């Protein structure tokens, strides 16, 4: 089998992983080495695939052979599919050649479980070591830690990679038991805990010794599959919040479940992936990380799912109308962040601009405030947008109208002359 065919099989098997970020790395250029990591906080996208997702890393599996039989996965043992295996040399050559041509920012290495988690991880370590030591690659590497791997191997992996991730995949233990019988909650959380405490230790050592080894300097992330099990948004958000609070994760990714297999326990194959729900979860995730919201403020037991019609911040604002309007010349940063249409950047710009002079409502658009949403919730120097009238009922209609163009449109129906009416 030639490299082109291997690449095709192992890319196809890896594409369902949502994470493809290259942010948080801080490798600077070194003499005798190739590469650095992007100095921008946001990482660097090298292309966007036909599904609109960022292509930043060479995202492949080392092998798609797997001893596990997770029901939702294309690579499960019982699936009839072509299997392939990259040798460490092939993968290192691909990475370096792609990197030199500026196709990619680095390597995202995942793998099916071949023989055992330990054996697979050892193969991954061999590949990464070849890349780092022989090819002197100084770009970004994201490696997957496989649940159930020995701590010593996770340690070695972390010293070679920039970011490590352990995928939780199913948001509840019941889901795991039903769909991924080979994995347990404990086996997933153990390496997460280890990565967290080890990178904390590494940071402390770096303060004392400049050349102390860096353990996963870009932190760790995970992925949750949305829509394969019956878990509510509230459950998912609370889990996310716990992961950020307790495990200091950099990111939690959500992946709308795409039915790849017919199984009694899974949604049927003709169910469309819940893309809008995934989008709303990402919006709520941002609110948790950058806007000072708590999961309990956004949702509760009575309202366990996010309203798909408007974004979660609008939804919160609509149920807390007493909090508004906010006066932009006096409100503090955290209150500004609660206004729909005001983001982290525009809130900072407001703080900076109002030190020079009083802000007027006309200035806000230039500061980056999205007025079609924010107008209902703001005043500037005591004045709202001239001519704006609304009641709590028309407010929702106004926000829905502002939202509509960005929502997926219902598919057009082809009219046929020959269909019988009715």
């Amino acid at each position: 089998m030639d490299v082109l065919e291997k690449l095709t099989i192992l890319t196809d098997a890896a594409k369902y992983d949502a994470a493809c970020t290259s942010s948080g790395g801080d490798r600077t250029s070194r003499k005798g080495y190739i590469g650095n990591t992007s100095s921008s906080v946001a990482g660097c996208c090298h292309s966007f695939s036909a599904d609109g997702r960022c292509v930043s890393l060479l995202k492949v599996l080392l092998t798609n052979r797997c001893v596990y039989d997770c029901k939702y996965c294309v690579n499960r043992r019982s699936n009839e599919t072509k299997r392939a295996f990259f040798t460490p040399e092939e993968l290192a050559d691909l990475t370096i050649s792609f990197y030199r041509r500026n196709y990619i920012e680095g390597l995202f290495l995942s793998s099916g479980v071949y023989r055992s988690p330990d054996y697979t991880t050892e193969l991954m370590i061999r590949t990464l070591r070849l890349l780092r030591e022989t090819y002197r690659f100084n770009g970004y590497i994201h490696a997957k830690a496989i649940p159930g791997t020995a701590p010593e191997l996770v340690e070695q992996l972390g010293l070679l990679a920039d970011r490590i991730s352990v995928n939780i995949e199913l948001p509840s233990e019941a889901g795991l038991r039903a769909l991924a019988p080979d994995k347990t909650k404990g086996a997933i959380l153990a390496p997460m805990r280890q990565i967290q405490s080890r990178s904390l230790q590494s940071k402390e050592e770096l303060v004392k010794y400049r050349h102390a080894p860096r353990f996963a300097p870009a932190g760790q992330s995970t992925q949750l599959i949305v829509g394969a099990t019956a878990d509510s948004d509230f459950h998912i958000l609370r889990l996310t919040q716990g992961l950020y609070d307790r495990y200091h994760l950099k990111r939690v990714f959500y992946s709308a479940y795409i039915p790849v297999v017919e199984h009694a326990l899974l949604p049927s194959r003709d169910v469309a992936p819940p893309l809008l729900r995934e989008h709303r979860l990402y919006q709520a995730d941002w609110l948790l990380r950058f806007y000072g919201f708590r999961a309990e403020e956004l949702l509760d037991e009575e309202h366990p799912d996010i309203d798909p019609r408007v974004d979660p911040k609008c939804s919160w604002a609509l149920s807390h109308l007493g909090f508004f309007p906010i006066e932009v010349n006096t409100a503090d940063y955290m209150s500004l962040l609660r206004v729909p249409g005001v983001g982290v950047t525009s809130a900072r710009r407001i703080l900076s601009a109002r030190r020079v002079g009083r802000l007027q409502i006309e200035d806000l658009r230039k500061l980056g405030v999205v007025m079609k949403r924010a107008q209902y919730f703001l005043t500037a120097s005591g004045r709202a947008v001239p001519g704006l009238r609304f009641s709590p009922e028309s407010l929702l209609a106004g926000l829905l109208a502002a939202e509509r163009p960005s929502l997926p449109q219902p598919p057009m129906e082809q009219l046929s002359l020959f269909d019988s009416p009715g």
Partner: protein
Amino acid sequence: MSEMIYTYDGSFEGFLCCIFESYANKEVLTAICRDEDFLPTLFAVRAVQTDRSHAGRVYRKVVKLSPYGAKLLQKGFLTCLTDKELCLYRLTVKLLRDGPSFLRDRSDETLYPVIKAVGHLDGEAHLLKGFVRFSELGGVLGGEIEPKNRVLPLLRSHFCARYRDESFFLYDRTHREALFYTAGKAVIRPLESFQMAPPDEAEARYRLLWKRFYDTIAIQERYDPKGRRTHMPMRYWSTMTEFQGEEAFKAQSPSAGGPVPGVPGGIPAPGIRPGSGRSAPGSVL
């Protein structure tokens, strides 16, 4: 105070000299244009001669008032803003008159057009850090871009750090200039025309591998052409490997000739410092 049109040589120093002259002669400018773009009008015209010491005096004064303001001038000069010279001139006049505090207020009417144009420049440079595609031509990496703004000075440090031990060049089709880097030294020089050499065996193979990877990584069930165009506008596609026609993936035997394929005759190969040319922005001061 009389109203004037100034013409200058198109360099950043030349532009700073326009500001210097307008103060020296107590003249208010209604337009500043490059010598070659100038069309005769009824207004009085002054052709400004570039004097590095005058330019330095203006620049140092701006830096002293606000280093951020100086950064805006430098970057603003690289943008594709129409009448960028006049906008930057007005910004400088206001900075000298009122002091730097207005630079904190993005909604200020003098600042807003400049900061928006600089944002566009920064955004384009950030995207191109990812979208630039190099081809290996006889050990040298070469790439082409077609940006709206003059992004090469902003891309220089990024690519020089990334490909530290390589030699590469990057050609800007829009502004007809190229960034050359070899042995730790980078220069930006005007380059009238450039034609990329066809790929050799190995290059064609890697292009094909990349194209296959790109096509495979997309999930069919999530097909979203609008999302892709939003993140990656189609004007960038023309220079990206994955959107090239079949020709780009076919190896062709290199024609016998120059030592470095891809570098056209008469153009100095990367590493050989060309003779004096128009100074490139970013290398000034």
